[in-house]
């Protein structure tokens, strides 16, 4: 069973101070750490589990600059057999839709039974690439998968809905699935795998090598700004009864219950 996993190298902003750079359209990245997008790590692990079950090869693809090879190499150490980088430096700014089209132009020529992507990237948070890609490749899809199993030509899939409800599906392969975090326990890379990965070749594909050279953009990011919310604790004083009453009021007003 051959599996393709699309991964993205993203800045780790959860614990960081995020500052807008001088273009106003991007963030200052020099002090940030970068790593594989969180849900992509689960997607990769799901692929590794499927490979353990069925054999076959895992190919990871990332559209990114040279640094993305570091992330691809991590993927190679954690179960992938092949890695492809599509050179982001060959393109101007890309939106999610264009990215999907570029990925499609490479993936369409590859052999695969399953494509896994993360369900969302933590940087721009669109949740678009997976489904767009599935549509472009004209294969079925399911988003937000939290449980996955497969046999030769069908997948048994559970999607996470709101409120603890789960949707149980049966999907024909080949298909694309966007993977939710928590579906599995992503593995560590062993030192043997790390050394093996360090020596593997990463296939690099430039714009010229793509079958297509024009990709329609859906949207343009005009500017970034700090949303006008700041966290400052509001101490509710008074007697226990007074403070409780204030709190109850706030909870009600904000519709938190």
């Amino acid at each position: 069973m051959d599996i393709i996993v699309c991964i993205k190298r993203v800045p780790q902003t959860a614990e960081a101070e995020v500052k807008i750079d001088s273009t106003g359209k991007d963030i200052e990245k020099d002090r940030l750490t970068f790593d594989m997008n969180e849900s992509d790590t689960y997607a990769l692990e799901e692929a590794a589990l499927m490979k353990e079950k069925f054999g076959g090869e895992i190919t990871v693809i990332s559209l990114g600059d040279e640094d993305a090879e570091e992330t691809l190499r991590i993927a190679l150490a954690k179960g992938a057999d092949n890695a492809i980088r599509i050179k982001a430096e060959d393109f101007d700014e890309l939106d999610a839709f264009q990215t999907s089209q570029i990925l499609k132009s490479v993936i369409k020529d590859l052999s695969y039974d399953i494509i896994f992507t993360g369900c969302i990237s933590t940087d721009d948070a669109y949740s678009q690439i997976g489904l767009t890609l599935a549509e472009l490749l004209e294969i079925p899809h399911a988003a937000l998968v939290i449980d996955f199993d497969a046999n030769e030509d069908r997948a048994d899939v559970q999607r996470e809905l709101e409120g603890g409800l789960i949707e149980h599906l049966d999907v024909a392969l080949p298909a694309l699935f966007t993977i939710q975090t928590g579906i599995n326990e992503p593995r560590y890379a062993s030192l043997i795998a790390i050394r093996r990965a360090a020596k593997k070749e990463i296939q690099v594909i430039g714009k010229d090598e793509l079958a297509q050279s024009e990709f329609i953009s859906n949207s343009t990011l005009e500017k970034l700004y700090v949303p006008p919310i700041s966290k400052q604790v509001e101490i509710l004083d008074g007697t226990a009864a007074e403070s409780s009453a204030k709190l109850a009021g706030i909870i009600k007003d904000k519709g938190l219950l």
Partner: protein
Amino acid sequence: MSGIYILIEHRQDEIRDISYELLAYGRKLAEDNNTKVTAVILGFNTEKIVEKIESQAHKIIVFDNEVFKEFNAETYQIALADLIRKDNPFLFLIGHSAFGMDLCPALATQLNLPFTTDCLAIEIADSNLRVVRHMFDGKLAAKVLLRENSSYMLTLRAGSFSAAESSLKAEIIKLDSPVSEVPDYRKFLEYIEAVAGDVDITKSDIVVGIGRGIKEQDNLAMIEEFAASIGGVVACSRPIVDADWLPKDRQVGSSGKVIKPKLYIAIGISGAFQHVAGMKGAETIVAINKDANAPIFHEADYGIVDDLFKVIPVLKEKIAEL
């Protein structure tokens, strides 16, 4: 402008909150832009659902067919593609939910519509459509301009808009389903409910966290009661798990679970950074602690500096009074 279409999300005969929010926002947009709101319902035996939103839209388009009995992105996609091609609405709005996320990008792509996801606001000016959305773990907002087109598709974030009453009387149009059979390549099998009794603190919108400030195991009952009264679940910091008062899966923190509820009430938790790492993503954080210097107050939106044993019983009453 050829109208604002809103896809109604429903499950097990209940309309999801997001749909009411979208309808309210859609009506406002329609008013501003001098157009109409059309709700689109796909389902089977949809009378009750239609009834519920009759007053919320100018028009309701219904595909009532057994194939739409359960949500299936692939079946929905076929029907909606057909509808949108015919009607070519200016805006097609879907909730940014498990439902919308599983549908919108594929549908829009099929139709070659400019689309974007997880929007918090929409600005329509001249012939341009701009949206506001969050990026980088919600730390920044972005203004995004969509490719100019006569028709757009967007998913909108739940909770960004308030639902509102309305007194419209929708024109109801029942259309025949362009699909008669659920395609073999994606089949709905069942809904699975989370196992009753099992508390998954990551799934709850309201979490009451307790720390060593509760002092004795016997006091746990009082907290459980309080949490139940507000529809929340009880989670805790490390010392409580250490003391075996609660199981490990209730622990919030770097070694426990990371939770992002709407409301987190930290009771008797000092706020060691290991704990904070697990709950800082909560939308609203309330801290109740008698130590005014407890670091938890750095994380909280609202704080009560008082003895928790005094506050909790009263708070329970006050909330019940609402």
